[in-house]
Each structure stands twice: as C-alpha cells, then as structure tokens.
C-alpha cells in the first residue's frame, strides 16, 4: 500500500472530531500525507472516530486515503484490529513492549484484516532485538526520539544507528520516526533513511495554522 521509494508525513490528530474535520479540510490534498487517529482520539471516540477521519480525508482527496489507528495494542489485539479495519483503518499499531506472543498475534491479525502492521518501539532500548524474536516481520517499525511527556526543548536524538541496522538486515521493512516536531527534525529523519515522519504537536497546539504547517512540512517530502 505504501511505496517504499516515497517519503511520507504522518500527522496525528487528537483534538475533538469537529476540530479535526476542519483541520483535515485545510490540509493540502497530498498522497504523501498519512492521517493518524491518535491514541487519545481512539480512546475518546472509538472506531467511530476512525471512520470519521477516513471520511474527512476521503472528501478532501476524493479517494480513500491512508488512515493509521494508533491503538498501541498491548493484549487482546485481535478484536481491536478487526474493529478498526472495519472502520476503514489502513494500519494499526501494537506496542513493542507487549509480550512477543501478542505482537505475533497482532501481525497475523493485521495480515488477515489486510491492513499494515506497525510495531511501536516506544521505551525500547534495542528494537532490533524485538524484531529478531518475531515469527513474521511487521510492515512498519516505529522508532521514537523521546518521551511525549518530556519538555519539547529537551535534546532528542534520532535513532539513526537503529534505522541503519534494521534496514541493513531486513531490507523491505519501512521505518517511521516519531518525536521530531520541527521541519529540521523531519529533514533529518528522511536524511537518515526513514520512510515516515510522524508529527502532531504543532498541529495540536495551533490548529488554525494547519494549512501553513502542512505546506511547510510537505516541501521536505520528495
């Protein structure tokens, strides 16, 4: 579904559905934008929220777009995967911190539901070691630059060694990097061979600037 030769900007939405509808309408109609239903949005609205985002984005680009359901599955993955796939999600996430059995089951469920599987390596020191233990690889690995709860000006390193190691070993897996919030961060993310850059903070804080922000970020995406 995603082209490994392209770069993508994943924008996470967490405000109220009314606000998100307006924000999505302001986005440029680009095939390089992935729309994420953030974890708080999912927990607030459930699969109804995912279906709503799917519709808003569809209306904007005039065809079904790519929607990420940031479920952060930790157990009982299957019911959630099925539900969000039905609601129109193109991908779902599972925590790399969950039991290996759960991640294996999650990837299997995603394959059966024909959506992309994303394993979120939040708070994991060596994501590579998790991948080695899995029966099948996920479609996408999500790496983090830091903790959301930290202040934004704290130094956040791009996990470039992890990216190179994962790409070097498992060529076809896609890499997404979360936690870089400035255009400079996004440039570095792509320069370091990641395929997807995840951003949310500036959009969350100034929804009215959505169009300008997205335009600025999109310039960096080839």
């Amino acid at each position, binding site marked *: 579904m995603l082209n490994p030769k392209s770069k993508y900007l994943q924008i996470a939405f967490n405000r109220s559905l009314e606000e998100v509808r307006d924000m999505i309408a302001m986005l440029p109609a680009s095939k390089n934008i992935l729309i994420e239903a953030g974890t708080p949005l999912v*927990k607030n609205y*459930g699969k109804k929220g995912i279906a709503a985002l799917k519709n808003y984005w569809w209306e904007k680009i005039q065809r079904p777009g790519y929607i990420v359901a940031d*479920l952060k599955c*930790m157990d009982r993955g299957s019911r959630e995967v099925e539900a969000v796939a039905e609601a129109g999600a193109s991908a779902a996430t599972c925590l790399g911190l*969950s039991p290996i059995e759960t991640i294996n089951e999650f990837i299997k469920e995603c394959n059966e539901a024909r959506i992309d599987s994303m394993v979120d390596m939040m708070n994991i020191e060596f994501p590579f070691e998790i991948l080695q233990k899995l029966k099948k690889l996920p479609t996408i690995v999500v790496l983090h630059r830091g903790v959301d709860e930290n202040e934004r000006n704290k130094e956040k390193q791009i996990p470039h060694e992890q990216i190179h190691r994962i790409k070097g070993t498992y060529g076809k897996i896609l890499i997404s990097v979360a936690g870089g919030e400035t255009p400079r961060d996004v440039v570095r993310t792509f320069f370091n061979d990641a395929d997807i850059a995840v951003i949310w903070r500036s959009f969350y804080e100034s929804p009215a600037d959505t169009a300008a922000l997205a335009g600025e970020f999109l310039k960096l995406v080839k």
Partner: protein
Amino acid sequence: MQLPTSERILIEAGTPLIKIYGTDAVWQIKKIAPPGAYIVADSKCADLASREVQMMAKAGASSATCLGVAPIETIDSFIEECQRFNIDSMIDMMNVESALAVLKKLKKLPDVVMLHRGVDESEFSKEKQIPYYQIKQIKGNYNVLVAVAGGDTIREVQRAILNDADIVVVWKNFYQPSSQTSQLAKSFLEEIK
C-alpha cells in the same frame, strides 16, 4: 445487568471496549450500573497521560490504568493527573519483570498496582504463572493496594486472596452473558470474604 448489587464488585470497562466505543463505553456502563458503582477505565495509558486521564474522569470513571512498561515520566504524569481529577491510579504491570523496580523510580505511589500475566500470553503459553510472591513483596514495602489479573477460576481467586491481594480481576467467564452470570459473580464474591 445480572450482577448482584455489592459494593465489593468493581466494574471494568475493558481496553477493547474503550478502543471500540471510546469514553462512551465508560459513560454507558456508569449509566446502567447501580448508583455509586466503582468503574475502572482500563485505558492502559502509554503516553499523553494527562489527556487520557481527563477524558476517563469526565466520562465517570472511578479509576484509570497506566502501563508499567510506559516511560517513567508518563507514569508520574498519569499518577499526578489522577490525583488532580480525584480518581484512583492503577499501574498495570503486564510484561514488567520487576514491579518493585518500577515503583522505586516513581515520584509518587499509585493507589493500586496490578499484577498480570497477559491475556494473550495465558492462551499461548499456559505455563506462565501469576506472580503471587510479588504481592507480599510489594505490600511489605509500599502502602498500595494490589490487584491480580489473568486468573479466572475459583481456585485462582482463592489463591490470590490467600496471598493477600486486595482486588481480583476476572473477565473470561463474564465475556459472554449467560444465565449463570449472576450465580458466577456470587460464587466469586463468597471467596473473597
């Protein structure tokens, strides 16, 4: 609602229910439960704690859960937000090797520590045991309540209570409504006295 009315029953809105229906799940359960019922929102917070706590509290939850594997900053923020919104904080220690090690790093203690063996895990590798020995270890060192999840038989409930657990979480037998739901709840209740 076939459950017996008992102040010793806590009603949990499970994680899949929340992710499928959102906070509406918590709100709807609150509406059909007896007045004053204790509702646990098993939100399993992993980041952005403040927003999740706020929405669960507003929906009527008496407590919310945060993952013990989450970054310490997230757990600290979760506990702080729970106090601000006047709900109990539960830390779910699923897939955490040492619950004590996590508690040691926190700025403030949560109200409840939940010991776990993952639901998926218990289906795929049945040899994994609920870490009963950790209950006394935790209660000996910290003034917190301990909940035990992942055991669903009467025998497991007995064992948890004998080992000093304060809360026993059951779900499998209640997953589908049946004519036995009420009887089942009563028999569990007898065990915890």
